[in-house]
């Protein structure tokens, strides 16, 4: 592990992702990535008595499936980094309390997936953990009642508002040298079919700085977060002396349509053209025309579920080889918004490669 430039940390052993999983709700399943998820629920309450319980279960199941796919037992995991949007991160603490894994709660708003993944990778890289897990979740209904209005309230959402994803994504990180049972089974049984399958590894992380360009509208978080994403990407490119064309994809967290547009403009003004390789999890998760999501998806679960389905699937299949995953978060609360404060934002970057 060494620092590159001012902000970037290079992981020389490139820890690998041994397993990952995504669990989503009905609307996400009906979206363009519907077939990529590991599990989905038609009933957004998951049969639970509260939305908070439903979200907790999303998170627990995402971890359980990811562990199962990695052929790892929960008792062997050295640390789990988890976070969500609810006050005191209750989806994480209540969802994961039965797993008996050393736990560090994280809050990075919608950037939490990159934050937890970066920490898991750093812990494995440094040898602090042999197996580290990262998980985040969000739930449309639990987020609405905490941040906005009751579900059945008859209001209109402005066109810049984004739709909180009901989803969770989890990643299990181990050293590259660890041979997991799954691979042993594979090499014995189906050498030919799986010989082309690649392993996703984490080679660099770049922790973002809090950026605030004075946007106050809590219904326009894409605009608030775009400068944070631009700043982190610029810092990373400058640290590593690379250009956007060196990557197959630069995927931002959940800027949605408004924020993505602004990101491209901000980057262009800095003389960097990312338009050819840029996409956004908030744009990928839902079908804007059919699904009435206004400016796209958002929430911790948005970037988490897109990463733990489409993105990692594509790295495994070789469609993507080298991507920058830049999850973005708006770090305000209902209190700060009501007191008229602007929205501080953050973006963390994780570079993922298929080897």
């Amino acid at each position, binding site marked *: 592990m060494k620092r590159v430039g001012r902000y970037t940390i290079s992981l020389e052993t490139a820890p690998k992702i041994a397993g990952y999983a995504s669990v989503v709700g009905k609307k996400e399943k009906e979206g363009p990535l519907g077939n990529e998820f590991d599990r989905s629920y038609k009933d957004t309450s998951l049969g639970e008595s509260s939305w908070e319980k439903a979200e907790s279960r999303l998170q627990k199941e995402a971890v359980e499936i990811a562990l199962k796919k990695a052929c790892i037992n929960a008792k062997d995991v050295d640390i789990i980094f988890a976070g969500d949007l609810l006050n005191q991160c209750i989806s994480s603490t209540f969802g994961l309390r039965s797993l008996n894994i050393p736990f560090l709660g994280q809050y990075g708003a919608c950037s939490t997936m990159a934050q937890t993944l970066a920490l898991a990778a750093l812990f494995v890289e440094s040898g602090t953990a042999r197996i580290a897990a990262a998980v985040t979740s969000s739930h449309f209904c639990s987020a609405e009642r905490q941040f906005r209005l009751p*579900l*059945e309230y008859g209001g209109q959402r402005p066109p810049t508002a984004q739709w909180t994803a009901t989803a969770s994504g989890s990643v299990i990180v181990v050293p590259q040298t660890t041979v997991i049972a799954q691979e042993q089974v594979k090499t014995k049984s189906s050498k030919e079919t799986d010989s082309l399958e690649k392993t996703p590894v984490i080679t660099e992380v770049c922790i973002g700085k809090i950026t605030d360009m004075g946007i106050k509208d809590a219904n326009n978080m894409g605009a608030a977060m775009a400068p944070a994403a631009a*700043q982190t990407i610029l810092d990373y490119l400058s640290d590593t002396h690379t250009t956007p064309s060196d990557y197959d994809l630069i995927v931002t967290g959940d800027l949605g349509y*408004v924020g993505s547009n602004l990101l491209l403009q901000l980057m262009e*003004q*800095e003389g960097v053209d990312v338009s050819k390789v840029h996409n956004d999890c908030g744009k990928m998760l839902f079908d804007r025309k059919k699904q009435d999501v206004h400016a796209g998806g958002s929430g911790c679960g948005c970037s988490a579920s897109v990463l733990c389905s489409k993105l990692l699937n594509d790295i495994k299949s070789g469609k993507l080889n080298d991507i920058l995953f830049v999850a973005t978060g708006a770090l305000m609360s209902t209190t700060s918004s009501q007191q008229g404060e602007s929205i501080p934002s953050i973006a963390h970057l994780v570079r993922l490669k298929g080897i």
Partner: protein
Amino acid sequence: MKMTKDVYGKMAKQASPPSTFVKNSVMAFLFGGAICTIGQGILEGYLMLGMDVKNARAAVSITLIGLAAILTAFKVYDNIAKIAGAGTLVPITGFSNSIVSPAMEFKSEGHVLGLSAKMFIISGPVLVYGIVSSIIYGIILYIISLF
């Protein structure tokens, strides 16, 4: 980045699509008008049943509040309101929805601290400022009547 807050604020405003003003206004007019017409119809009905005007008017309000509460409970009201906007918000039906929807939402926190305490989170301010302004209006009216 070289960007200043002012410049970015303008950039963000330009990149953010505004609400569809004309469409929203037309929908509010049509739905709001329809609710008032239904109210008038109900009033005529009560009058035909032999109720006096004063009681019939109160009964119309009660009926509309009840209908909106039922539609909210069946999770229909918000779907209409998404299209109707101010058309369903401004009439008394909107008031009903603003009380029933938090009551439903916060039931999971119990009947005392959840349902009943949170019932007025949206309509509470309307009640406070409605009552305050009616008091001020009453005082002004009283002073005028002295001369």
